[in-house]
């Protein structure tokens, strides 16, 4: 994504250019949607999150400052907060009380509302990944998704999640380990078949 083009489009949309707003939306909708989709496991939640992200952008209620970082990462940060907020409201999972270093990375209550996503992602490997992610604690899940799916750097993830880089590194390590643990039966099964 070209950050300069993003800023130009943002300036134009603030001046009332609907085409610029549409272009900006189309540049970022897929990434934000897939992030929210994999994080929440629910397409309707992901769609709501994307809509809310851009509603905030067009009303300028987030006060985005181009000097403080890239627009794309800023939007991911907003989407992350919205997904977490939505999950809290719906009590799909319980945040581990002990913080980063005291749990095994698995959420205590697993997302159970992801059937539409299972239908959407008609792929066995992806379905297993989705199930494994759903069992991951959210604060590991967002770091892992941003790193693995969106190929964000530690620095970018730290900016998006408002974390120290060391925390990002720690969460990513634990999240990947927990994910590998959750995927182990599937991988063993796949290996047997092969």
């Amino acid at each position, binding site marked *: 994504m070209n950050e300069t083009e993003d800023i130009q489009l943002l300036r134009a949309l603030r001046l*009332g250019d609907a085409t610029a707003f*549409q272009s900006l939306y189309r540049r970022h*909708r897929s990434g934000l949607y897939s992030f929210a989709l994999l994080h929440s496991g629910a397409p309707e939640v992901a769609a709501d999150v994307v809509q809310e992200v851009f509603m905030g952008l067009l009303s300028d209620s987030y006060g985005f400052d181009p000097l403080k970082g890239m627009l794309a990462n800023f939007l991911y940060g907003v989407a992350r907060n919205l997904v977490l907020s939505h999950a809290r409201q719906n009590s799909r999972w319980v945040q581990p009380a002990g913080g980063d270093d005291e749990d095994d990375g698995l959420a205590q209550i697993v997302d159970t509302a992801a059937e539409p996503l299972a239908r959407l992602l008609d*792929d066995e*490997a992806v379905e*297993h*990944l989705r199930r*494994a992610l759903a069992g991951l604690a959210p604060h590991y899940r967002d770091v892992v998704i941003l790193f693995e*799916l969106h190929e964000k750097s530690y620095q970018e993830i730290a900016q998006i999640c408002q974390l120290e880089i060391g925390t990002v590194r720690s969460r990513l390590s634990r999240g990947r380990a927990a994910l590998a643990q959750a995927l182990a039966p599937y991988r063993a099964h796949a290996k047997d078949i092969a």
Partner: protein
Amino acid sequence: MNMFDFEDNHYNGNGRAPEWEAARSALAQSAPPDHVEQALLRAFAKRHAPRPWYRRWDIDAVASWAGIGALGCVLAIVGMSLLPAAPPSVRVVRVLAAADVGFVSIVSPERMAAAVNPQLKQADLPRSALVQMGIPIVADAPDELVHAELMVAATGEPLAIRLAVN
């Protein structure tokens, strides 16, 4: 080699697990439903709808334009005061020239100079006649008589006039 058989935590040569590669390709073209974009564009259009003219003025804009207007007035007044005064009209010059003696010439200077033995005559003249002679006098009552002194040539031609001071 099986796609899931990797030596280090099942991650491939790019450091990505195959499940992530599958997810990436599955989600590459994913996008929110069209109604999301439509709702956003409606909200955008509503937010940026043209406002009626009387709502386009906020207090800052009004204050700015009022300040600009006031400054313009001041500059216009200053500019006008710096302009040289326009030359007085012939009529005014004639009155001012005669101010010392109080006479207003009603003939050309050549005829005035050529006049021999002019005499002073007293007369009561209507205001309308004085106005016709070019005397700066209010003609709101044209028939009212005004006492005047006339300088008359030997031929009887009136040369200059002076209104009597009450």
